[in-house]
């Protein structure tokens, strides 16, 4: 076992870190404040750097790199701006990856390649008002009508919604089938008649990332935009989320790393009782725990990513990585605010934003409870 990044992974980390620090970090605070998504910076620049299709083969416009490189890219972006990190993660893992995994050749050429090249942005529509963790409760319907499918229903809490051009959407195609079996996946493009966007969510964190409702009212799409087979939707959603968890775990890891570095720098400079607070063992112990938990999370994330790249089953590994990294992010950012004291509670310093951003990583793409269900059921099967 070799715990070392490859030359290529190191180069990718250096490149993304330099980009993140030079271009993304300076506007992170104001974009959060204004709840503003900056597509030119947060997506188009990622496309120019070749990051929008990192893990896909070159023949589909991708970069041909591995999942560890992808994890590193999301981690480095999230270290300075969690909203930019999730933009990439939702686009790649949730929008593009199901088309790569389940699309036919024509769908890959038509829909995956523009996503991988970053000409289009991707998103994923699974959650509904009554179907979150319980995806089998999907109420949105798709009815076959000649050579088309007609979609009706509403999806909520959709990351990248409004901005994205290509959506993978789940809808019930068989009312009589058992709840998990009657669901199918579809590729729906922005601009299709009957497809519109509802309200934009006002959120606690990741406020520079748009979250909106998708509304389908007799939205007619060609039959060729059924993804995978009819009734295969639940499986497609679960497989997609296995990969998505690596993205969110990487996002959580980056948030935690950013908070740790901010806390260490502050502790070295902040003087109380005529001494930098970093000299106090109480503070050092807190920093030591934060760093140790982050490093443990990193190993879990990279290990899950390694499995994903090498054809090893990674459902349990990605659940563990996401559970550990997201709960670490919440603990570490809360601790970072504590080390900053009163200043940490103000919006002048980045740690309060990191703490607000961290919370969502325990919720979306499977709550911490769902991760424990995945791990627990695999253990006791």
């Amino acid at each position, binding site marked *: 076992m070799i715990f070392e990044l490859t*030359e*290529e992974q*190191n*180069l*990718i980390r*250096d*490149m993304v870190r*330099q*980009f993140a620090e030079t271009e993304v970090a300076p506007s992170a605070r104001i974009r959060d404040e204004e709840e503003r998504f900056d597509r030119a910076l947060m997506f188009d620049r990622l496309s*120019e*750097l*070749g*990051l929008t299709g*990192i893990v896909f083969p*070159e023949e589909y416009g991708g*970069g*041909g*790199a591995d999942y560890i*490189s992808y994890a590193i890219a999301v981690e480095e972006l999230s270290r300075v701006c969690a909203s930019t990190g999730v933009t990439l993660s939702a686009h790649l893992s949730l929008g593009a990856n199901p088309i790569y995994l389940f699309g036919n050749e024509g769908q890959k050429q038509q829909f995956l390649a523009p996503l991988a090249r970053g000409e289009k942005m991707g998103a994923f529509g699974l959650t509904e008002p009554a179907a979150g963790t319980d995806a089998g409760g999907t109420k949105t319907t798709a009815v076959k009508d000649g050579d088309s499918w007609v979609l009706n229903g509403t999806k909520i809490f959709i990351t990248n919604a409004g901005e994205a051009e290509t959506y993978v959407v789940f809808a019930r195609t068989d009312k009589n089938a058992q709840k998990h079996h009657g669901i199918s996946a579809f590729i729906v493009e922005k601009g299709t008649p009957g497809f519109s966007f509802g309200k934009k969510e006002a959120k606690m964190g990741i406020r520079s990332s748009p979250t909106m409702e998708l509304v389908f009212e007799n939205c007619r799409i060609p039959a060729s935009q059924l993804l995978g087979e009819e009734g295969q939707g639940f499986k497609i959603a679960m497989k997609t989320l296995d990969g998505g968890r690596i993205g969110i775990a990487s996002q959580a890891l980056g948030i935690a790393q950013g908070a740790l570095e901010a806390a260490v720098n502050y502790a070295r400079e902040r003087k109380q009782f005529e001494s930098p607070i970093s000299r106090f063992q109480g503070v050092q112990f807190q920093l030591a725990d934060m760093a140790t938990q982050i490093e443990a999370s990193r190993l879990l994330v990279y290990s899950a990513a390694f499995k994903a790249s090498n054809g090893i089953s990674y459902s349990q590994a990605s659940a563990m990585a996401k559970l550990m990294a997201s709960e670490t992010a919440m603990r570490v950012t809360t601790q970072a605010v504590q080390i900053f004291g009163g200043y940490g509670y103000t919006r002048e310093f980045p740690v309060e934003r990191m703490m607000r951003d961290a919370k969502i990583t325990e919720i979306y793409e499977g709550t911490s409870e769902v991760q424990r269900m995945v791990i627990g059921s695999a253990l006791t099967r």
Partner: protein
Amino acid sequence: MKILVCMKHVPDMESKFKIAADGRWYDGGDLAWRINEYDEYAVEQAVRLKEQLGNSDITVLSIGPERVKEAMKKALAMGCDRGVHVLDDRPSDRDAMAIATIIAAFARGRNFDCIFTGMQSQDRGSGQVGILVGEMLGLPAVSTIVDFSCNGDNRYTVKRELEGGVRAVVEVRGPALFTCQLGLNTPRYPTLPNIMKAKKKELLTVPVTELAGTGNVQDTVQLFFPEKKGGGLLLEGEIPELADKLIAILKEKTTVLA
């Protein structure tokens, strides 16, 4: 056109430096390493020249231990075509003359039309290697360039930076060597597809013994941190007088008023 770029691997300047046990150089043990900043300008200028002219081939050369290969991969990902790694485990034992001799030994007979180096390294900072290589190869060497244009037909117009914010325009006919200064360009990011492509580019390792010529002509006998002095310069006097003094200093030491 055949282009050569010379680059050095130097410690990240935000590192905490310690003097090595022999007292003559810094301890390289725990440091993170980077491409020398000035050499990144050299790489970028070489790639831009190739983009302008087409049909060119850029060789990047670096002297050092195994670790320098990673930085060379970055240069390849930025657009250099091939790399020559001169394997030398202790390049810091060599002075500017010895390093220049090695580079010249490689370049001699290879007919490079244009050579770019940084104007100095961020660690030793002698500022001599590029110019010495030019001399050894019998090429005109233009130092501290801040602007570069190729007029085709092997003719170049460059701007040099002089003291006190003064600049000079120099015209030179190739083959020639240029040492690159801050402000020449903004180095590009090595994009992910180019990082992947760099893996397939030729990166040849040559033992330093095959190229080494003369030894050192100078030796560093001691490396030390300067004693800490009081902070800054305190100007005193009446306000108009202070303003004049400040303007004079800004004009002399910086380019903000140039």
